[in-house]
């Protein structure tokens, strides 16, 4: 679908939509939506910070050139239409006319050019990496931007949504040299459907309707409030008492989600994570004993009951997975996977073969386990893994770490097993490569993705080839071989596809309309009132 080319005109569709929206305008327009942001982000400028909370709020203020449907087809945003040349080398975006920034200045190709040439490569490592594929970025006129690539890179189109390719206002950065610390970063001037009205630190962030929004008649909502409520129980009470209308995954504990979803007038959706594709990881340190031995890594895969993790620890929210590719990812090939069912006996046999015989107390090896310091749920998962490994003779000691310590130890190979979950993103070349490509020395100078220190020359070769393969069929073959190798090598354990439910009152409509879910701009969200 993504390789090759398409030139689409959305003019007709837009006209039809415009008629429909004028009709519905009267009922849909107005109202306030109350949400939770957890934790409070340091900034809501998604151009400089794209972690969950900043993306959630920033995506209403800023925009990308395109967005993605749940099937991951591009849909127009600041770009009205686009074309990719048949050789996969030239990407041309036709920008929307009549768009203004929140400060009234017009949006043109100069802004897009500034964002991709200067701003994003300076502040966002992934953007720098992918944009380095481009030989030139040019703006032939005020409403066109053209990327010429050095070699085909079919994943390229994926970086243009709001969190990956945030379009920033060039006019606020004239004369600025350090984009990361520029004072303009605190002004929150975007083109999005909502503008910043007030940020009361520690309490709430208030966004108001942008009356000059390019999509006439939208947004429907007048106000968005993002409440800062640091305690999970208090968040759940705020939803129950009707103070907030939406709970996102992580706002409350999973067992609370099921309870709240059963209340009258409350709905639950698992949609909206098609683009980010989160997978639970159990990193194994391939550079250290005992996990430098593939048999020991395979033994861990057999020793852990991944169904138990989904059903008991994550309260039924999750899907089984046996390899590196999320279920909606292109090129996923389950037929080549080596599958590891829950089988402690097989695990013990493999450990015997690897020379890890039971010592005193049945202990074969003693290792250190880093939990993910993101709350109770992850602590429980670490405890389960400790018990499951203990049952096959691997004594795991859970380390006490906070986020900073966890991050440092993972990226410096100072651990044995580490919990994590990762947004694997829609194109493998962007979201997957960094986790498996060989890292020389420590992780300095990389995106810190391959924290397990996995190294396989054939995998390196495949991943680099596949990233630049324009032909879909050849690309599929390469990725099948990749999945075959890594499911055999088990550089890490893929515990499950994370399912992040969103719970909301049924008066809220169009909440997770696109593949970006609640990171969409909310121009289409409306409420009964």
């Amino acid at each position: 679908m993504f390789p090759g080319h398409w030139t689409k005109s959305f003019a007709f569709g837009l006209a039809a939509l415009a008629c429909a929206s004028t009709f519905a305008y009267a009922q849909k327009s107005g109202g306030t939506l109350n949400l939770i942001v957890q934790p409070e982000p340091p900034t809501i400028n998604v151009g400089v910070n794209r972690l969950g909370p900043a993306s959630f709020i920033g995506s209403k203020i800023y925009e990308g050139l395109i967005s993605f449907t749940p099937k991951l087809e591009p849909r127009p945003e600041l770009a009205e239409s686009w074309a990719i040349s048949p050789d996969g080398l030239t990407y041309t975006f036709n920008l929307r006319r009549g768009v203004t920034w929140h400060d009234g200045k017009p949006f043109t190709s100069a802004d897009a050019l500034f964002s991709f040439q200067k701003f994003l490569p300076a502040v966002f490592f992934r953007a720098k990496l992918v944009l380095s594929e481009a030989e030139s970025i040019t703006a032939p006129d005020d409403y066109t931007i053209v990327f010429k690539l050095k070699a085909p890179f079919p994943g390229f189109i994926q970086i243009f949504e709001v969190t990956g390719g945030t379009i920033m206002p060039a006019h606020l950065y004239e004369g600025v040299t350090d984009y990361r610390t520029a004072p303009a970063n605190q002004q929150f001037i975007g083109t999005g459907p909502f503008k910043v009205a007030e940020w009361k630190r520690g309490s709430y962030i208030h966004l108001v309707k942008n009356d000059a929004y390019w999509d006439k008649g939208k947004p429907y909502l007048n106000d968005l409030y993002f409440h800062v409520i640091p305690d999970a129980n208090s968040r759940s009470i705020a939803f129950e008492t009707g103070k907030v209308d939406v709970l996102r995954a992580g706002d409350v504990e999973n067992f609370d989600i099921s309870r709240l979803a059963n209340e009258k007038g409350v709905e639950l959706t698992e949609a909206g994570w098609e683009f980010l594709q989160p997978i639970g990881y159990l990193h194994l340190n391939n550079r250290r004993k005992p996990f430098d031995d593939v048999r020991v890594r395979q033994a861990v895969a057999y020793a852990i009951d991944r169904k138990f993790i989904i059903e008991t620890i994550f309260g039924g929210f999750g899907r089984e997975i046996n390899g590196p590719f999320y279920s909606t990812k292109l090129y996923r090939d389950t037929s080549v996977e080596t599958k590891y069912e829950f089988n402690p006996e097989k695990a013990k046999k493999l450990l015997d073969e690897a020379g890890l015989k039971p010592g005193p107390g049945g202990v074969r090896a003693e290792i250190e386990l880093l939990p993910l310091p993101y709350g109770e749920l992850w602590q429980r998962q670490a405890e389960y893994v400790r018990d499951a490994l203990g049952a096959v003779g691997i004594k795991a000691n859970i380390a006490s770490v906070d986020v900073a310590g966890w991050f440092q130890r993972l990226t410096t190979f100072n651990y044995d097993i580490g919990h994590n979950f990762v947004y694997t993103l829609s194109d493998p070349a962007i979201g997957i490569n960094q986790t498996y490509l060989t890292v020389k020395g420590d992780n300095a100078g990389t995106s810190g993705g391959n924290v397990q220190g996995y190294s396989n020359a054939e995998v390196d070769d495949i991943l680099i080839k596949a990233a630049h393969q324009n032909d879909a069929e050849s690309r599929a073959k390469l990725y099948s071989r990749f999945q075959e190798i890594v499911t055999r090598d088990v550089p890490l354990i893929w515990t499950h596809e994370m399912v992040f439910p969103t719970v909301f009152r049924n008066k809220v409509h169009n909440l997770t309309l696109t593949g970006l879910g609640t990171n969409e701009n909310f121009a289409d969200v409306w409420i009964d009132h």
Partner: protein
Amino acid sequence: MWSVRLQFLFWRLIKSVVVLLAVVVLNFTVLRLAPGDPALVLAGEQGAADAAFVDQIRADFGLDRSIPEQLGIYIRSLATFDLGLSFREQRPISQIIGERLPATLLLTLTALAVSLLIGIPLGALAARRPHRALDVALTTISTAFFAMPLFWTGLLAIILFSVWLNWLPSYGMVTVGIPAGGLAELLDVLWHLTLPALTLALFYVAIYLRVTRAAVIEVIGSDFVRTARATGLPAARIWRQHILRNALLPVITFASLQAGHLIGGSIIVETVFAWPGIGRLAFDALLQRDYNLLLSIFFASSVIVMVFNLLADSLYAFVDPRIDAGPAPA
């Protein structure tokens, strides 16, 4: 007499400054000993541990210098009342603390006042007839609140007063959308303050109740009270001038100790009730390794401890004239 008091306060002030300096050095050193590199955390927030990027962050915040050098720079900027920028928010720390400190002080000072107003009279009441029904009931109930974890008391209060009765808001400091300034906002803040302040106060009531009770019982049994009674002084006057005045000394000690915890002591209540205070700010700053911010919060709270200790010492001097004799120059 006054010059002696002033001299006493002067030396206390000098001592405070020296202690403050020691605290600053200690905080700084201990914090740098913790594992976890702030530059890596910040880089992680941007989605990568790109080496050049991390080096840039280190240079920006002076983290590439030696620790003694960093300490020197830090103390020099503190001396000029420059708290610097927050690593994470890229905003002046004085501004960040300024946003949060009033909320915390409002909460903790209210709780302190309420706990004193409830605790002292109840303690005196309980002491009138020790081990009788009223005394047992009061001490048991207050101990129960003392023993209950704060988050638990808070959640029960929310369920009762917010969810079931719907009388009071369950979180936050203001209703969103209420016009700023004016009486409406003031009442709204008080309305939001009720639950968190009472939760915190109930916890402290037990302390003041028990301290007052013990002190009163001790004083009642002393010779001068018996003498006062024997001379036929009215009971009310004996209570006011002889018993309570003497019994209040340990209460002041405790109150000043607690006042020192005005900033840090309310993290849990601030969390449960989503109160936008400084305790939560400190907790977040610690997790984010926002050294500058964290050190400044420690600094601010040390200053508050010092100030309250000074206040307590001065109060002693007024309540108990004997204190004067203590620090007289040799």
